[in-house]
């Protein structure tokens, strides 16, 4: 509990938390290795796309509280895509039910372009049915989270998404196609 005395103020909450993944991330930071191999304290820029303003505010606050994140928000699919090209975030957290571009369509738009296909993407949605999860994974996201989600779990998912490689993504798609899709 007291081993983190030399942390920055932002990390102290993470250390106080018992969640392993966040602690893991913290230790990575300590070793000076970010997941992309660069050294030092790296701030991840996360783009949150959701049409519900309450949700945007809670997720923003959670991320700022729990880790070294820089948060940008967007309120619908088209805005999200524009913000993606403007801000070049390290990770995106996308809601499904949005006006304009669907969450799935946004994911496909990003995954379809080889320049941007490597972006870590996380879906955070209220749709919990198996068929929705299958559709989301089939669109190509790295993590499919259902609301309500604990802030720590969201952070863990973001890190997991960032850590994924292109080969892993391809493999996931292959596996998804092999297995029979769930009944609605």
């Amino acid at each position, binding site marked *: 509990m007291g081993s983190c005395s030399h942390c920055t103020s932002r990390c102290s*909450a993470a250390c*106080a938390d018992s969640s392993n993944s966040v602690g893991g991330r913290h230790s990575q930071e300590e070793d000076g290795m970010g997941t992309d191999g660069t050294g030092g304290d790296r701030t991840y820029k996360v783009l949150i796309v959701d049409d519900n303003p309450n949700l945007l505010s809670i997720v923003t606050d959670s991320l700022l509280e729990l880790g070294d994140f820089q948060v940008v928000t967007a309120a619908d699919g088209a805005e999200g895509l524009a913000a993606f090209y403007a801000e070049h975030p390290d990770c995106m957290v996308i809601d499904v039910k949005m006006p304009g571009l669907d969450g799935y369509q946004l994911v496909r738009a990003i995954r379809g372009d080889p320049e941007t296909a490597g972006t870590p993407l996380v879906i955070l949605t*209220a749709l919990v049915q198996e068929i929705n999860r299958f559709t989301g994974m089939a669109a190509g996201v790295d993590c499919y989270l259902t609301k309500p989600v604990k802030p720590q779990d969201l952070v863990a998912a973001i890190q997991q998404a960032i850590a994924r490689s292109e080969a892993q993504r391809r493999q996931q798609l292959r596996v998804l196609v092999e297995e029979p899709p769930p009944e609605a």
Partner: protein
Amino acid sequence: MLEPLSGPISEPAIVQTYDRKRRLGLVRVIAPGIAVLLGLFTVVFTIYLVRVGVPSSRRVLAFLTVGVLVACVMLFLLAAVAARRDRMLLATRTTIVGAGLTIVSFTILWAIVLGNGLDPVTFGAFAATGIAIALAGVLGDSSMIVFITVAMNAFVLLALIFTPPIVFPGVGPGSWQYLLAREQGLFGPMIVLEQWVFAVIMLASTASFRRTLGDIGAAYVQIRRLDQLEQLKDQFITNVNHELRNPTMALQGYVELLRLRHEKVTPSGAAS
């Protein structure tokens, strides 16, 4: 989505099932209908033979023909029973065999027993009226079939009245026996029988076809309705989830954040 309830489903299997249903349905109507008609005719014919008398040289053949006609009635009844029990092969084959035997026996009857052979006019009458009714069945509906059959009946009867009589040897003119003894006495019922046999076949075929179409239509409507309901259900679940889970997450999230911030500040360590 809708899953098939049993067995592998492929196009040949479905066609087969429909075909089977259709053929059984047809036999269920045709076989009893023809059995009844043929039975009536056999009775009429036997009475005729008894009344008019048959030269002894042809008696055996006459008995044989009656016997074959009775056997055909039996075959059609057997087909009807088999159709009721879903034995499709037995039913359809028995009907076809019965029909063939009937035609053969009619030919023997006409050509040999009655002694005049099939003259072209008779043959033409048989064929033409049969074709007329078959056409009505293919192109029209039930009322058309019945109408054409009745019209053909009338045509045959009129022809009977106006064609010169062909006299069976041994009976003189002037008596009612003479009238009955004219071949046309048998010619009439025979052709009427043949016309109504055609009519029964066409009516059964049309009715069966329409019923099949009705089935398909009804099932289609059902499927559409089910799809609508399924969509409604999915929409509803989505909406409820959306309405309930978003605020829940906001609430839970803030509570969690408050807890974390509180832990930061509590006496476990000095605030950093």
